[in-house]
């Protein structure tokens, strides 16, 4: 299985490196947020009570990285739909290769891609905007982002394989991800000091809020149990569920 996973991983890596423009396009959006939205935050954070501790850049940068993971990993299913259309999926499925490997090779590549993009964004925030964050914390956040990417890509592949429709897929992904994104407080953290009670309550139910919180804690160097525990548990549980879901879908006879 490891060997098959590696072969699939390498195939996707080769394809990505053949068109590295996709990597750059993926980075563009968070970069625009940094440049065009970040400076606004700087003022707002200092003059508004209720923000979590840390400078505006330590609040915004990890959130943008997580947003990137949300966007790129959830749309991973698109490439699978193309593979289905081209018959690639079927061709791989008649080989004795492990079905789980066909999934893992792809999601690991998604994880690595997101981490690479996240590093670019972090470096930019560090060089241009004077972000200051501990290396250990940044690494922790990168790990969170990688796991999140694997989680969401698995789910995305499972949905794509089940739906098998290139029109319905983006519509579904958008309608699910939009509220998730807003409710996870990525641009403006949803805290008790800023949000009305009902909004705060809903945002706490959203698992991704806790993951964003953990990512922010990493960037400000807060390794306390209080800051990381909920997020890590949520992430590990979500990842297990989604990878299991994806693997089961890949194993299913018609997949």
């Amino acid at each position, binding site marked *: 299985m490891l060997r098959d996973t590696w072969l699939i991983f390498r195939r996707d890596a*080769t394809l990505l490196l053949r*068109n590295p423009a996709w990597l750059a396009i993926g980075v563009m959006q968070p970069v625009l947020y940094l440049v065009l939205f970040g400076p606004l935050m700087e003022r707002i954070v200092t003059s508004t009570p209720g923000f979590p501790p840390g400078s505006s850049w330590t609040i915004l940068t990890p959130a943008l990285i997580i947003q990137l993971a949300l966007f790129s990993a959830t749309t991973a299913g698109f490439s699978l739909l193309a593979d289905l259309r081209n018959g690639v999926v*079927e*061709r791989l499925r008649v080989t*004795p290769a492990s079905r789980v490997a066909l999934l893992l090779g792809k999601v690991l590549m998604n994880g690595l891609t997101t981490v690479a993009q996240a590093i670019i964004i972090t470096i930019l925030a560090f060089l241009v905007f004077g972000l200051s964050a501990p290396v250990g914390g940044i690494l922790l956040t990168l790990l969170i982002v990688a796991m999140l990417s694997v989680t969401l890509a698995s789910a995305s592949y499972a949905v794509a394989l089940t739906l098998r429709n290139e029109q319905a897929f983006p519509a579904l992904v958008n309608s699910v991800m939009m509220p998730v994104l807003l409710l996870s407080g990525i641009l403006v953290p949803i805290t008790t000091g800023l949000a009305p009670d009902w909004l705060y309550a809903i945002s706490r139910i959203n698992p991704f809020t806790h993951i964003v919180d953990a990512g922010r804690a990493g960037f400000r160097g807060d390794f306390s149990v209080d800051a990381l525990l909920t997020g890590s548990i949520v992430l590990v549980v979500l990842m297990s569920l989604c990878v299991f879901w994806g693997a089961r879908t890949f194993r299913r006879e018609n997949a």
Partner: protein
Amino acid sequence: MGVFLIKARGLQRRFTSRGRTVDAVKGVDIDVAEGELVGFLGPNGAGKTTTLRMLTTLLTPTAGEAQVAGRDLRADPVGVRGRIGYVAQGGGTGPECKVAEEIELQGRLYGLGKADAIARGRELTEQLDLSGLDQRLTKTLSGGQRRRLDIALGLIHSPKLVFFDEPTTGLDPQSRANLWEHIRTLRSEQGVTLFLTTHYLEEADALCDRILVIDGGEIVAEGTPDALKARVSGDSVVLGVDDDVTTRAAEIVGGVEGAHELTTAPGEVRFRVPRGDTALPALLRAFDAENLTMQSMQVQRPTLDDVFLTLTGRSLRDSGSGGDADSADEAAADDGERNEVPTHAA
């Protein structure tokens, strides 16, 4: 016959979607011996592809059992996969992948080492006239080249049994003739056993030792192309004569031994006779003796289309092209289970 590479009994597949069930394949028995080239002939939606997908482990049968390449389809699908090759109807290469990459990946997924996969790939690209295309992206290949690459991928692990789903659909006539040559060579030079589906009569006729005719999910006939054609009683003959002597001409034809299904239209006499080629000279002499002139004559050997017509009462060409109820049913039934991805990108 020797060893059977396919032995299927009562293979059945039912699709259920939106409360509707469709029996795409209603229990078929298939025996294919080592070294045979067997064709699975039927109109679109007859259940060819569904049967093939079951035999290649892509679809679990609703009922029935099969031994494929010596392994049990249900108990050991992985064992079956390792021993068969499958060339799908629409191909299976990524457009942005290089030819060499796809070949190596395929070989390694079948368990070959890197060097072995590359060496075997080189051997196959040479055999299939794909030399020199290694570094090309598959999207830049011609239709015929891409189909030959699909075949190379299906043969990378030197399987003894290879399945082809509609191997020449969408190819131009030259590429089709060329592909037929390659398929024949596979059998004659490498002893590969082949099972292919087609809705082209010419293809089944030109390639196959034996044909299974499937219609509405059931095998309705089986035999060599000649044996199947012999089921249609004789050659069809059409004579052209002057309008005013049609009746007289028909009387003469009626006297020919074995002539039957005699019909006339002004200036035309049609009939069937066991051997058209030997019946005609005698007929010409009889016409001469009566001072009648024959304007034209046509003798047609029975085709598999005639066979299909005799067996099902429908023409294969009509039922194949008309988007008939069968294929609509199968497509609808497929919806829930394996929705076709639209061919245009979103």
